[in-house]
């Protein structure tokens, strides 16, 4: 018979080995991205490959950060993502408030449409969008991207906000109404401040979606000064003959905002995501 402590030790070692294997699967590609971004382009496919090259260089980062065209991709991505996040939060909070606090005609059908929109494939909207955005005179503008992304971010925001407001007692806003305040005051002064955790998690999720979007950014913009980071990386692939180190540097820089947001708001975010996906 094995003693308990030996058995415990074996279990612990096995689990640690499994954890390390998993970490290799998850983390190795990311390490390789980092490592390649610090190489010169001639060393990318060097044989044998090395993790930390002898010729450690920042040239790829310098190339990306001194190229005004590529800096513009970052500017565009930040601008669009921040605007989408702000608008989604404002419109989503108003919508969630309406669903949580009022009973009205067509409430169920409107709610069903909002849930249903989440299942609409982006590619289905693509064909009519092109004509529609041109007709609205929005082609190749920031507004084309901002409004389009809101179609995909707003339903989640409304569903989550409704759920969040539902957990707050109605007495809170009714006290404001009795004192003669309007419902908007009740929402803005009372409900919004105590919903900050929920709002943050929705905001991070929205920012991520907007920052990562590719299909519409590719189709609804035309000139390079309107391109966002995901499309810009693809352009980099076509223009120059495979500047792998620059593409990796841009990938690292392009992932940093989401990574930082994620690390800072990890707790809110995971709670929000799993509540949203699982409990609806």
């Amino acid at each position, binding site marked *: 018979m094995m003693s308990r402590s030996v058995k415990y030790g074996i279990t612990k070692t096995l689990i640690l080995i499994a954890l390390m294997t998993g970490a290799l699967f*998850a*983390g190795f590609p990311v390490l390789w*991205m980092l490592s390649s971004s610090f190489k010169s382009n001639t060393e990318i496919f060097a044989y044998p490959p090395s993790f930390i090259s002898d010729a450690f260089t920042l040239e790829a980062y310098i190339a990306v950060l001194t190229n005004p065209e590529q800096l513009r991709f970052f500017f565009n991505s930040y601008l669009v993502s921040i605007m989408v996040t702000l608008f989604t939060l404002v419109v989503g909070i108003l919508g969630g408030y309406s669903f949580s606090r009022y009973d009205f005609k067509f409430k169920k059908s409107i709610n069903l449409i909002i849930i249903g929109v989440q*299942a609409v*494939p982006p590619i289905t909207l693509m*064909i009519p969008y092109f004509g529609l955005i041109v007709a609205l005179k929005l082609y190749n503008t920031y507004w084309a991207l901002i409004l389009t992304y*809101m179609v995909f971010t707003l339903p989640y925001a409304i569903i989550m906000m409704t759920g969040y407001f539902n957990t707050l007692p109605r007495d809170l806003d009714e006290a404001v109404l009795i004192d003669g305040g309007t419902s908007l005051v009740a929402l803005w002064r009372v409900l919004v401040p105590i919903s900050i955790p929920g709002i943050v998690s929705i905001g991070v999720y929205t920012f991520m979606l907007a920052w990562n979007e590719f299909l519409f950014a590719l189709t609804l913009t035309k000139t390079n000064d309107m391109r966002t980071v995901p499309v810009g990386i693809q352009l980099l692939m076509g223009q120059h003959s495979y500047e792998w180190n620059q593409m990796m540097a841009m990938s690292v820089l392009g992932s940093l905002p989401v990574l930082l947001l994620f690390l800072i708001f990890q707790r809110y975010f995971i709670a929000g995501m799993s509540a949203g996906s699982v409990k609806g």
Partner: protein
Amino acid sequence: MTNISIANTESKNHNWQKTRKKLVPFAYLSPTIALLTVLSLIPIAIVFYYSLMDNVIITRDAPSFVGISNYVDIITDSVFLEALSNTLFLTIVSVVAHLIIGLAFAMLLNTEVISPMTRALFRVVYILPWVFTASIIAILWRLMLNPNGIINYLLMWSNLVSHQIEWLGSREVALYAVTFINIWAGYPFYMVSLLAGLQGISKDLYEAGTIDGASRIQLFRYITLPQLKPIILSLAMLDFIWTTHQFTLIWMTTGGGPIRSTEVLSTFTYKLAFSSYKFSLASANAFIILTLSIVVALFYVRNQKATGE
């Protein structure tokens, strides 16, 4: 006389107040309703209209009504059938693999044998693929799966393969390679949700099971899995919908090639519309994808209702 008129204005005021009150929720929802109508419902109506017509968008002739003939053309098109079968392969293999890897990682992160600090560290590493956008993931894996890349080097160094493999460039393996990338990119979402689910299972259940002499496998089979079932169903259905919509990853790794071997429904639709300018056929195809998604979504909603209340 005056009395009556006063009463009348009062009731009018009252009615007006009532209507106003009824309008308040709609006022709050008006930006949402406007946006979703213009940029979601109307486009869907347009796509349906296009799918029943010929000569739409780029054409000199007037559009003409052709009924379901576009749909017949699409469904009997061999490329469509190939794209459909590739989409189903990618989706089903991804969903199953996501579930297995997500559950395995979630259970590893949930073991109490390891200290909480170590677990938190591994959790961050395991979530990493999630923070990268599809276009960045596509480029990264193109670098790694390049014939001269690190993956081939490692495989040859460990004698698993004898020659360089064109992972994304050969018809035989491209679909498997793309599916693998999609699996790597998508499991963290499962892991996070399942971890939350595992932490929600009452310890009493396991204690009772252990007292009854159940083995670890039995505990997993009869306690863990049934408790996680609603979460697993939700995740699988959401993932099914999302993976059938996958465009960026395919577009930026293989573009659907080589020779259609990784063509999926969304890349097929995109090419029909924006490379061949066959907008009617593309619309019919887009509407088929929409219908499939809505059917799965209805199951999802039903499942949510059944488990949520």
